[in-house]
């Protein structure tokens, strides 16, 4: 039977790799893979590969600091383990796929075989993660030691934790069978924890004086104090097995690594036997977990994945939708219902009020005025990031549009009406967010001393000028995911999966490049004509007029570009052959 399970695992993995390699024949995956590999190499692995396999130059940090880090890591593991016993309320379940449930559960297999299979499967992920973390973190640079040893250390920690969490879930299930319900288990666990913490605290008070402020005014001081706390019994006794577990990871040379390996491996083997010998019914809960996972994956693949859960309550409409009128407004109405009651004009006005009151309060006291610059810089940075980030978040909604496009296309609507309708709600939300951030920056700068020509009135005028162009600019950038959907639908689909590997990472990077190019190209004519308008305004000798003129001209250019883009996308939508993307 184990052979059959090994066969399943090996063949699944080989076929997955083969499928990944075969799809590289398609340019979209090949380009994506190249971009992804280049990114990983230049940003993550270039230095790591150079250093992997070499022993570090020895620890850059004092030995006692390494020991303190190890003690803190052991303490973190203790907290995680205590949490796994006290808090979870879910039934004991192992994560299987629906296919595994369908084939393996009715097969002539013992529970022990199923657990073995599950452990075998989890080992693949743990091994991969251990190597990746060791490469990415390059821990040896700071604390000395060899990356191979760090990878092995990670593997030991993750494998033992994995076994412990499974064993704890089995033990919780057994306690439930014995009549100890989760609420009582939590109460008992919390009491026990409080007793242990109290004992440690009492011992600590008698043995270790509370440090003065100047003793813990830097990282070394804080670490030193924590190290001394964790080294005191009875806490040190509790931490002992956890320190065994983290010791190989923190070993600085081969000898100390091998010496630390023996107790750590002993712990791993003990956990293995604990889990294997547990005879707990996990099948029913595992079937539920498998079903939930399958639903989640299916939702993600169809672009229906959401951050929260499905709506449970109906939501009030943002405004009354009359049966006749501008059709695209119906999409805004529908999408504003979908985003929820928080995104309403009322909320935005309250936020504006808070911003005005908050910035006035900061500006009222010279001691707080230095914060105004920080707040303004944060607001401007966030506004800049949101210009690109907003449309990238929109890609999920765009994929959802694809799944409903056949219904939308059966309605008596022009393509541009559908495109504009779908653009309206993100455009409105993004514009209002940008205006709020601009208001924040303008309020901050207007209370600071004038810098050059930027006195308070000019600052406000400049903010108004930028606010005028924000809406069409947001609209233009939001056209990018729709253009991607209509011109490169296969790319949009392939980037909707669950991760998807290096090639999908590369595709996302290329998409980001697309946003930057579109922003640059759309701003170029607006900037050129706006620049001429600014010079004209300056020639007339009025900076306020120059700024407003620039804004009106640049905004008009962007509105024209947006109109052209929506018309162009609408025409494409009308000609768009859904049958290439949807099952026939």
């Amino acid at each position, binding site marked *: 039977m184990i052979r059959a399970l090994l066969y399943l695992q090996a063949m699944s993995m080989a076929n997955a790799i083969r499928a990944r390699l075969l799809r590289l024949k398609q340019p979209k995956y090949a380009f994506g893979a190249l971009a992804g590999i280049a990114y990983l190499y230049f940003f993550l692995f270039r230095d790591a590969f150079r250093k992997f396999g070499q022993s570090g130059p020895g620890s850059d940090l004092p030995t006692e600091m390494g020991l303190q880090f190890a003690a803190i890591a052991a303490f973190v593991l203790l907290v995680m383990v205590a949490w796994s016993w006290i808090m979870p309320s879910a039934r004991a379940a192992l994560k299987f796929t629906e296919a595994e449930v369908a084939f393996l559960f009715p097969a002539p297999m013992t529970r022990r075989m199923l657990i073995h299979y599950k452990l075998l499967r989890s080992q693949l992920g743990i091994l991969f993660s251990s190597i990746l973390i060791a490469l990415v973190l390059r821990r040896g640079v700071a604390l000395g030691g060899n990356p191979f040893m760090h990878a092995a250390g990670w593997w030991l920690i993750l494998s033992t934790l994995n076994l412990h969490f499974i064993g704890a879930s089995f033990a919780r299930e057994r306690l439930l069978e014995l009549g100890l319900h989760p609420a009582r288990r939590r109460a008992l666990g919390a009491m026990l924890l409080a007793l242990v913490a109290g004992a440690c605290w009492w011992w600590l008070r008698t043995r270790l004086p509370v440090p003065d402020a100047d003793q813990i005014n830097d990282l070394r001081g804080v670490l030193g104090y924590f190290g001394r706390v964790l080294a005191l019994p009875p806490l040190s006794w509790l931490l002992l097995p956890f320190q065994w577990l983290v010791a190989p990871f923190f070993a600085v040379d081969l000898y100390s690594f091998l010496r630390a390996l023996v107790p750590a491996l002993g712990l791993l083997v003990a956990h293995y036997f604990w889990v294997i010998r547990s005879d707990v019914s996990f099948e029913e809960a595992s079937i539920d977990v498998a079903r939930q996972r399958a639903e989640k994956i299916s939702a993600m693949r169809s672009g229906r994945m959401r951050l929260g859960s*499905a*709506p*449970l*309550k*109906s*939501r009030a*409409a943002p405004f009354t*939708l*009359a*049966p*006749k*009128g501008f*059709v695209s*407004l*119906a999409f805004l*109405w*529908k999408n504003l*219902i*979908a985003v929820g009651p928080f995104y309403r004009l009322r909320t935005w006005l309250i936020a504006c009020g808070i911003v005005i009151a908050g910035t006035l309060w900061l500006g009222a006291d010279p001691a707080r005025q230095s914060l105004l610059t920080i707040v303004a810089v944060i607001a401007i940075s966030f506004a800049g990031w949101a210009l690109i980030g907003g449309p990238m978040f929109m890609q999920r909604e765009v994929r959802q549009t694809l*799944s*409903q496009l*056949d*219904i939308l*296309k*059966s*309605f*008596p*609507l*022009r393509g541009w009406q559908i495109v504009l309708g779908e653009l309206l709600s993100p455009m409105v939300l993004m514009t209002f967010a940008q205006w709020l951030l601009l208001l924040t920056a303008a309020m901050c700068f207007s209370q600071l001393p004038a810098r050059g020509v930027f006195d308070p009135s000019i600052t406000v005028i400049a903010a108004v000028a930028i606010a005028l162009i924000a809406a069409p600019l947001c609209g233009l950038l939001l056209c990018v995911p729709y253009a991607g959907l209509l011109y490169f639908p296969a790319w949009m689909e392939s980037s909707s999966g669950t991760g998807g590997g290096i090639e999908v990472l590369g595709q996302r990077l290329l998409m980001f490049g697309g946003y930057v190019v579109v922003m640059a190209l759309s701003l170029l004519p607006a900037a050129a004509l706006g620049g001429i308008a600014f010079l004209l305004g300056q020639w007339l000798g009025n900076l306020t007029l120059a700024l407003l003129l620039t804004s009106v001209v640049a905004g008009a250019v962007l509105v024209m570009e947006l109109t052209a883009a929506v018309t162009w996308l609408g025409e494409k939508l*009308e*000609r768009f*052959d*859904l*049958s*290439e993307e949807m099952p*026939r």
Partner: protein
Amino acid sequence: MIEVSQLSKNYGDFAAVRDLSFVVRPGEVMGLVGPNGAGKTTTLRCAAGIIPATAGTVTLGGIDLAADPIAAKRQLAFIPDEPRLFEHLTVWQHLNFVARLYGISDYALRGESLLADLEMTDKKHLLPGELSRGMKQKLAIACGLLHQPRVVFFDEPLTGLDPGGIRRMKDVMRRLARDGAALILSSHLLSLLEEVCTHVLILKDGSKMADGTMAEVRARYSEGTDMSLEDVFFRATGDAEGAGTAAAKP
């Protein structure tokens, strides 16, 4: 009325639908049948203007779909096999949204009446997530019928419905035909077609194998014997194995 003339749809070198012509008059229900991959869904999507045809013309209620798609689509309702609903809109908000798309002034009155007919009046403030599969399908039908279409396309309309839902769906189709709408019904369920359809069109590999009234198509393939639509289907599509199995049935 639905008039399809010399409709073709190609995907590269592959012809999904070849030179297909048919007419469905008001009050007629045409069953579109064929084996998997015969081109049924492609035909429906081309006829509904969802995907562009490679060649040929489609006229809905006398309006050329290519020349004036908006006016043509005002005549049409397309009911897909899987009800595709907006998960954040309640039943009534769906009707409100569709009313705006079609510009239906008296939608409130019509909506109430439709919901009453479909026994959904008490569900008007519920979200799709709170509805059963059958209720969702009924909501999709209510949305489709709100603008009183003269042409209705059903794609596998009985998928996932319970016996009660199936009966109600058949009643809806019969009532629509009685009121003068032209219906096309694509399904693998030959018994459904026998019950509801006045006409049938059998497709295979994108080409028309047979069409006409049920009686005409039966007469053409039955050679004087009493044959079920299932037997006729296998003979028309040249599926000897299927024909043999069907003939052997008691």
